[in-house]
């Protein structure tokens, strides 16, 4: 390589964030550039800076200089390469991209050239590829056009910032074009610069790039034709490789380094970027925050406020020193708004560790009472931004989002984006289309003959895996800035009208230090709101769930009995198995319960040791004495997310920042390579602390198994409040609770049918759908029964339901049809679901009658005078089946109730009788399958939950029986023989024989 060659820096480079027009990730490009000896590299994706944070991080990790930029599409379809010199340039680039994105329909950005007039400062302009405004006319031999375009750019960017871009990809005509461009540059007194318009890091990625091109154009590779590039020269090349192509223009190669040297912009934001919360006169943010907290303190801590006062002063001091008061006030304001509107919301995440958050009503948890440590929220040494995320009643979250837009203005608020990515499996369809074969051909199972196409497809799918495909809107992550957002990061329209997203996702925003507030929709909060309202109606006085104290023994009994169907977080099969062993007796136990049944503790094998230790069946032990402080509160096992950080600190001397990075790496699931550096550092650090190698390795293995799939304690505590509140509703107001649950489906672990049957077992009356009685939604009737709502009729729109409600009562079927003008199919569904039973006419007869009506296009004729027929009435079983099929719930008796006597006579036990069986006894049961699980952690065991008229039956299927039982769909009847197993209050039936029964 010559000296000049090694001076080359690539300034025109697309990553996979040129969505479907780039095959390499920013990190791959950086790695390759480093391999080629470049100490800088530019990223110029199409009309976007999506990849910038990853690019910057990858470059910094290798000590390289990242240059940011973009290739902008102009309205005449020409392309312009822009590079960011300084902060002004970045601001202008962000504005230009935002303008291009907003100017045209979504997905087809284009910038009106006039927009460049005031936004060229700090930007270096390269005249672009073959499609550039200068090259394109030159290729048509339109010299005046080319001169005009180049002059126009020179006027906008200035001669020092305008470079005529030379590209040579060994296409016919490239050499001539380069010569003409160079001549034109000389003529106009402009400099030239060579680039390679990179679209992939290595030559062998050409197929992947062609594939992406075909996918982008929704065509096959064969039909893509000229849209594919004719050769594979668009890889990242060294200066040495480009030398022969630009031999006559050494200054064009050398210019790359000079330009790179001028681009000194770095990407970094911070808290000062948040909008200013308007404080009352005489108060700054620190002062106002202190005042609000001081005002709230006596109410929260009547009588003995000393400890709280001390803690408050400490927290306020740290918050003020971290310049976070403004941030806390902004969140407080959102919570306050939600509360005044009657929207349930509460903070999640580490905020619950803070007394300030508790006093302001952001967090529902008293951190002093439940031993939550403020330092986990914020400490002098904690580098990461604290996160205050809000869970909001899902049905009204939009109102809070709208409040943010109203308060701070659309120019200062937008949603984070998400990137939907190609997945190896689902990419198969795209690959099949590109290769012009059927997916069936690619999937042909059992055919092991070598097939070139299949091998090729498999390779391509693997390469596509995880590449970004298109942009979405993050579910609730909002970015707020003091300066207009478009000065910080490009903003583009989201699919939802009137909604904008920034060009970075959640993690990227975090990486560059832009503050994001998560406003998450939580259906259970909506349930609590509605149920709380119903309870208030029932009691005749306003009722506030938040006034509950967490000390009612009846609630802990309910939890310990695993009578938890419908209750937040603790209703699953796995929870039901664990709760009777855990026997929660106080609030802290609920925190443990929801933290235990998480992928982290389960995979880390923490659940059983914890339960044994808690029950005193096993001594609390630590792999090393140094672990005691971190793990003492959880009996020696790792249960909470922050314990990873503490273990890393105590055993291996990690700083909190390093610990946080370790936790993130473990949780990211990026495989052994990503973890390896952390392991090395961990083992080395542990050795320095005198920890024996095998012990340190064992602890690290535990951390790995634990991963990041766990709750921080504070988060679990905030959720535990919702667990308690929902359990309380189930215990004391099951009808109100069921009504609200039914109105916010889908949610939770169990389908509505199970919720309804469980409620019936708790003496809740559930009334069927009735066109004369049902409301838009499920309602609690005066007599205390739950009435199914018209929202359970699939296909019936809100407008249709509204017409029924407005027009009733109906004299008969014809009247219903005439005045609601519902389509025949819907009326049929209403009849079959029993909604028209009120007329006292049998359902089959109503259907017959419906069939005699003439549905004209818009008008309904009078019915033909009915000819009478004899039709058999529906049996109870038929009626229930229809109700299930049409509504997803059934209000009638359980299918087995009618058969119980016969089943008992044949020796089948019901769920109550089964629970009374001694351990080890053989038993036979029949039930409806409501859940069938085969968790990956269960080593081949399957778990089936059966339901009969009196409750649930847990069936354990050993691996050897699994192949004998293929039916996986729920809803069918299953006959099980097995051995009763009692384990700490949980009754299971270990199957020895399984036999599905035909329906009915």
């Amino acid at each position, binding site marked *: 390589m010559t000296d000049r060659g090694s001076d080359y820096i690539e300034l025109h480079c697309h990553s996979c964030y040129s969505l479907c027009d780039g095959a390499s990730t920013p990190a791959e490009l950086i790695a390759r550039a480093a391999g080629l000896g470049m100490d800088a590299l530019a990223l110029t994706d199409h009309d976007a800076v999506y990849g910038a944070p990853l690019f910057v991080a990858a470059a910094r990790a290798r000590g390289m200089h990242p240059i940011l930029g973009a290739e902008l599409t102009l309205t005449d379809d020409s392309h312009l390469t822009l590079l960011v010199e300084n902060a002004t340039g970045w601001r202008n680039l962000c504005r230009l991209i935002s303008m291009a994105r907003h100017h045209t329909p979504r997905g087809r950005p284009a910038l009106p050239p006039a927009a460049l007039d005031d936004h060229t400062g700090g930007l270096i302009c390269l005249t672009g590829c073959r499609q550039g405004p200068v090259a394109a006319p030159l290729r048509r031999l339109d010299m005046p056009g080319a001169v005009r375009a180049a002059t126009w750019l020179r006027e906008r960017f200035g001669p020092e910032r305008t470079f005529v871009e030379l590209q040579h990809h060994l*296409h016919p005509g*490239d050499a*001539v074009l380069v010569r003409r461009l160079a001549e034109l540059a000389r003529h106009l007194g402009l400099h030239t610069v060579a680039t390679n318009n990179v679209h992939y890091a290595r030559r062998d990625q*050409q197929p992947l790039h*062609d594939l992406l091109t075909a996918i982008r154009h929704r065509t096959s590779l064969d039909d893509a034709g000229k849209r*594919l590039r*004719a*050769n*594979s020269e668009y890889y990242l090349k060294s200066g040495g490789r480009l030398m022969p192509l630009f031999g006559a223009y050494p200054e064009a190669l050398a210019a790359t380094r000079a330009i790179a040297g001028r681009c000194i912009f770095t990407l970094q934001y911070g808290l000062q970027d948040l909008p200013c919360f308007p404080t009352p006169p005489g108060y700054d943010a620190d002062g106002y925050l202190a005042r609000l907290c001081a005002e709230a303190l006596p109410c929260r801590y009547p009588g003995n406020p000393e400890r709280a006062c001390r803690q408050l002063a400490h927290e306020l001091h740290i918050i003020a020193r971290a310049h976070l008061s403004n941030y806390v006030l902004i969140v407080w304001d959102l919570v306050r708004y939600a509360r005044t509107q009657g929207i349930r919301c509460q903070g999640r995440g580490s905020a619950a560790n803070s007394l300030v958050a508790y006093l302001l009503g952001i967090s529902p948890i008293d951190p002093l009472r439940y031993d939550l440590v403020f330092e986990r929220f914020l400490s002098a040494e904690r580098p990461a931004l604290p996160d205050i995320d809000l869970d909001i009643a899902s049905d009204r979250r939009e109102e809070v989002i709208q409040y943010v837009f109203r308060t701070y203005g659309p120019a200062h608020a937008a949603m984070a984006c998400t990137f939907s990515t190609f997945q190896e499996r689902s990419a198969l369809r795209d690959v099949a289309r590109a290769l012009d074969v059927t997916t069936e051909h690619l999937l042909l199972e059992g055919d092991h003959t070598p097939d070139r196409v299949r091998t090729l497809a498999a390779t391509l799918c693997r390469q596509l895996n995880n590449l970004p495909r298109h942009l979405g809107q993050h579910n609730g992550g909002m970015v707020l800035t003091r300066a207009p957002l478009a000065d910080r990061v490009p903003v583009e329209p989201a699919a939802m009208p009137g909604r904008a997203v920034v060009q970075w996702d959640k993690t990227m925003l975090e990486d560059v230090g832009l503050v994001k507030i998560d406003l998450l929709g939580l259906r259970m909060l909506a349930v609590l709101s509605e149920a709380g309202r119903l309870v208030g109606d029932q009691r005749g006085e306003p009722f506030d769930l938040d006034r509950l104290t967490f000390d009612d023994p009846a609630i802990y009994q309910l939890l310990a009995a695993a009578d938890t169907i419908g209750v937040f977080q603790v209703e699953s099969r796995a929870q039901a198995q664990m709760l009777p062993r855990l026997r929660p007796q106080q609030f802290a136990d609920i925190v443990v319960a929801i933290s235990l049944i998480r992928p982290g503790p389960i995979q880390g094998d923490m659940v059983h040791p914890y339960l044994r230790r808690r029950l005193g069946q096993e001594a609390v032990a630590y792999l090393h004495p140094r672990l005691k402080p971190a793990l003492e509160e959880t009996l020696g096992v790792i249960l909470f997310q922050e314990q990873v950080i503490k273990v890393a600190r105590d055993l291996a001397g990690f700083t909190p920042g390093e610990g946080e990075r370790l936790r993130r790496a473990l949780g990211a699931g990026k495989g052994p390579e990503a973890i390896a550096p952390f392991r090395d550092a961990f083992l080395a650090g542990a050795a320095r602390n005198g920890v024996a190698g095998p012990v340190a390795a064992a602890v690290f293995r535990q951390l790995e198994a634990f991963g990041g799939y766990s709750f921080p304690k504070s988060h679990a505590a905030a959720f535990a409040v919702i667990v308690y509140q929902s359990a309380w509703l189930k215990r004391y107001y099951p009808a109100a609770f069921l009504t609200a649950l039914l109105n916010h489906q889908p949610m939770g672990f169990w389908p509505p049918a199970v919720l309804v049957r469980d409620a019936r077992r708790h003496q809740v009356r559930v009334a069927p759908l009735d066109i004369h009685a049902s409301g838009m939604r499920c309602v609690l009737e005066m007599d205390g029964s739950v009435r199914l709502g018209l929202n359970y009729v699939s296909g019936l729109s809100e407008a249709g339901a509204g017409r029924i409600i407005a027009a009733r009562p109906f004299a008969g079927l014809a009247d219903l049809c005439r005045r609601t003008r519902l389509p025949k199919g819907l009326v049929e569904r209403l009849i079959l679901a029993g909604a028209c039973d009120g007329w006292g006419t049998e359902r089959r007869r109503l259907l017959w009658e419906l069939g005699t009506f003439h549905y004209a296009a818009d008008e309904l004729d009078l019915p033909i005078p009915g000819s009478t027929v004899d039709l058999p009435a529906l049996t109870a079983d038929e009626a229930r089946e229809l109700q299930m099929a049409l509504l997803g719930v059934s209000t009638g008796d359980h299918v087995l109730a009618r058969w119980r006597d016969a089943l008992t006579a044949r020796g089948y036990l019901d769920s109550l009788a089964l629970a009374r069986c001694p351990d080890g006894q053989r038993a036979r049961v029949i039930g409806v399958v409501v859940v069938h699980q085969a968790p990956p952690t269960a080593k081949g065991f399957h778990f089936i939950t059966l339901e009969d008229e009196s409750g649930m039956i847990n069936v354990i299927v050993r691996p050897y029986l699994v192949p004998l039982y293929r039916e996986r769909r729920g809803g069918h009847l299953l006959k099980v023989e097995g051995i009763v197993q009692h384990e700490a209050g949980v009754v299971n039936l270990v199957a020895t024989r399984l036999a599905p029964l035909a329906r009915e």
Partner: protein
Amino acid sequence: MSRFWSDGIPLEVTVDALATPAAFAWRGRYHTVDRVIERWRVDEGWWKRRAWREYFQLVTHSGLLVLIYHDVRIDQWRLQRVYD
């Protein structure tokens, strides 16, 4: 008028150190290359039959203007076009 062979006709070519054609034999005559006017590269069709060719448009000392290519995968030279 120039003559064109869509599949090209096989050619014996001598290359220099930079893999650029220096001379070739055609119809019993030996032609030495005067200068390469343009060269380009085609590399496409990887999903069925990959075509990877180095094209050279060149003038011989004998005054011929020809287009020849090197099929890199099978290491074979072909004459595609002779310009008048």
